[in-house]
């Protein structure tokens, strides 16, 4: 693994490890970091799809929801073991991603974007309408928290659990990126025509990374469900899909670190705007616009370039 990546990984490990002590045990800050971790997991997958393979998904909240509802419903209503529910969620997401991805990834640019948007909306409607199963608009409550040796996992331990997952998935993702698969994905982004001509089965790889990103979102969904113990469709709306997209774009789609940075920053955003509820949507739109117009490669690259004096005309 590249040395820079290893150092960054270790830094994250240390910061997260020390965080509960740094935060003085403040549960609010700890949950904030947990949410950052959960979003970070989704965004790593989405970042690989968008930044490396160059595709777009405006419906990833759906996979987050599939994971959350799978874990939620199976553990709350059918007494499944959380690990079983977790894997069923991942499997379900993978299958749906395969079925949806196959016809959708064939489409060009705009059509793909709208198809994923439509897919996300359809799932949102399903979450709302299948009330007997999902609890409908009023949500699903009573999701059992995870337990370790009979004690519920919450707070600091949950923080370590979520970030432990994140770091493992990060390692996996970095390995994929720095391998022949990662180069194949970037080749597809660079020139799908040439990639195919050099023997890269572009359709297959696009589908694979789409499925992978769906499973990441599902895993995050399961972790989310057991943390908040109450879920409702409003958390899986298209606004969340847009927020995820923003995390990738604002942070910087080109590297996985950029996407993670975006997840950190934009998880904080709703917190900053909590008092200014009227401004929330406006702020999202404004930030996205400003970044796209002035720093299209994302904040991570933008700041780096500022320091090295480069100015880039943006291409995502």
């Amino acid at each position, binding site marked *: 693994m590249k040395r820079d990546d290893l150092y960054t990984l270790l830094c994250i490990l240390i910061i997260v490890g020390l965080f509960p002590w740094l935060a003085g045990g403040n549960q609010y800050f700890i949950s904030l970091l947990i949410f950052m971790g959960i979003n970070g997991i989704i965004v790593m997958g989405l970042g690989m799809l968008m930044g490396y393979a160059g595709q777009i998904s405006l419906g990833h909240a759906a996979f987050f929801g599939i994971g959350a509802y799978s874990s939620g419903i199976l553990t709350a209503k059918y007494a499944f073991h959380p690990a079983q529910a977790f894997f069923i969620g991942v499997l379900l997401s993978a299958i749906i991603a395969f079925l949806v991805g196959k*016809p959708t990834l064939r489409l060009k640019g705009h059509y793909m974007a709208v198809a994923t948007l439509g897919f996300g*909306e359809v799932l949102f409607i399903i979450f709302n*309408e299948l009330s007997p199963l999902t609890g409908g608009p009023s949500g699903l409550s009573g999701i059992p928290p995870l337990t370790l040796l009979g004690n519920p996992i919450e707070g600091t331990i949950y923080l370590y659990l979520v970030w432990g997952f994140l770091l493992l998935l990060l390692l996996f993702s970095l390995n994929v990126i720095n391998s022949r698969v990662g180069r194949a994905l970037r080749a597809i982004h660079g020139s799908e025509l040439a990639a195919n001509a050099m023997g890269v089965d572009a359709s297959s790889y696009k589908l694979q990374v789409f499925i992978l990103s769906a499973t990441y979102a599902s895993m995050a969904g399961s972790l989310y469900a057991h943390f908040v113990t109450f879920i409702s469709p409003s958390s899986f709306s298209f606004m969340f899909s847009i927020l995820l997209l923003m995390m990738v774009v604002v942070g910087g789609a080109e590297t996985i670190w950029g996407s993670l940075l975006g997840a950190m920053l934009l998880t904080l955003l709703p917190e900053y705007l909590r008092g200014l509820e*009227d401004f929330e*949507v406006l702020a999202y*739109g404004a930030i*996205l616009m400003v970044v796209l*117009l002035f720093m*299209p490669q994302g904040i991570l690259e933008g700041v780096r370039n500022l320091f090295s004096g480069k100015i880039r005309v943006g291409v995502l």
Partner: protein
Amino acid sequence: MTLTNQLIQFLFTGLTVGSIYALVALGFSMIYSSTAIINLAQGEFVMLGGLIMVFFTMVLKIPMVFGFALTVIGVTLVGALFERLAIHPLKKASLITLIIITLAGSILFRGVAMFLWGKDPYALPAFSGRSPVQFWGATIQYQIFWILGITVLVVFAIWFFFNRTLMGKAMAACAFNPLAARLVGINVRKMVLFSFGLSAAFGAIAGAIITPITLMEYDRGPLLALKGFAAAVLGGLGSGAGSIVAGFIIGILESLGAGLISSGYKDAIALVVLLIILWVKPSGLFGSAEESELKKF
């Protein structure tokens, strides 16, 4: 009510919402034709049309006719400004960036609307007439005639514009081959600006005429855009006639589905149509597959 009466009712409801989808679809087709961009903020033009009309007629108490005209002009300006400030500077950017910038625009518009009007729905009185009308056993709101009438007028105006005026033909030329268009002296920049303005106008008209029936709130945009886009694709992106026909088809399908099957999944009907069309025949009912292959995206 007998089944026939019910069906007539659904038909009229379907034609009503279908008009809106048709107008939104026209907006999509127009911008796509001249720029190969899908404007994801299209739905917001409709929303702004409705809410701004509410402002003019309910708050400023301006007579409806003037309110309507001012609304359309206002939203047209918004569309033009959007093109100037957000689309034009990014002309050279990648496809994904362009998609996202229109997305950002839609979020921004929604945010401004939420800021100015809050989250509540607003109502408009019908343009004329007071009580609903009985028509073949179905109860039809008077506004529906306005909606259908204005839609027909718009359709005729578009046909006239594109086929009988020089500017309209110039716009069509830009869509087909911007370089060639530029070489013969057509100002492509202006055309792009114009097409954004025009499709904003369509959206505003749609918003203004539907609000008396369905009310309007700040976040109506996205779903409308998706359904309008479904109609645009169904009819063949870039085909004005196709957009209109498809808009009505989807409206009627949705209305029949909501009435006969389930109203909870009503919105899903148009979306499923969208997905099926994109997955099976993205060139739409009236487009040719080869032609859409050749069109750049």
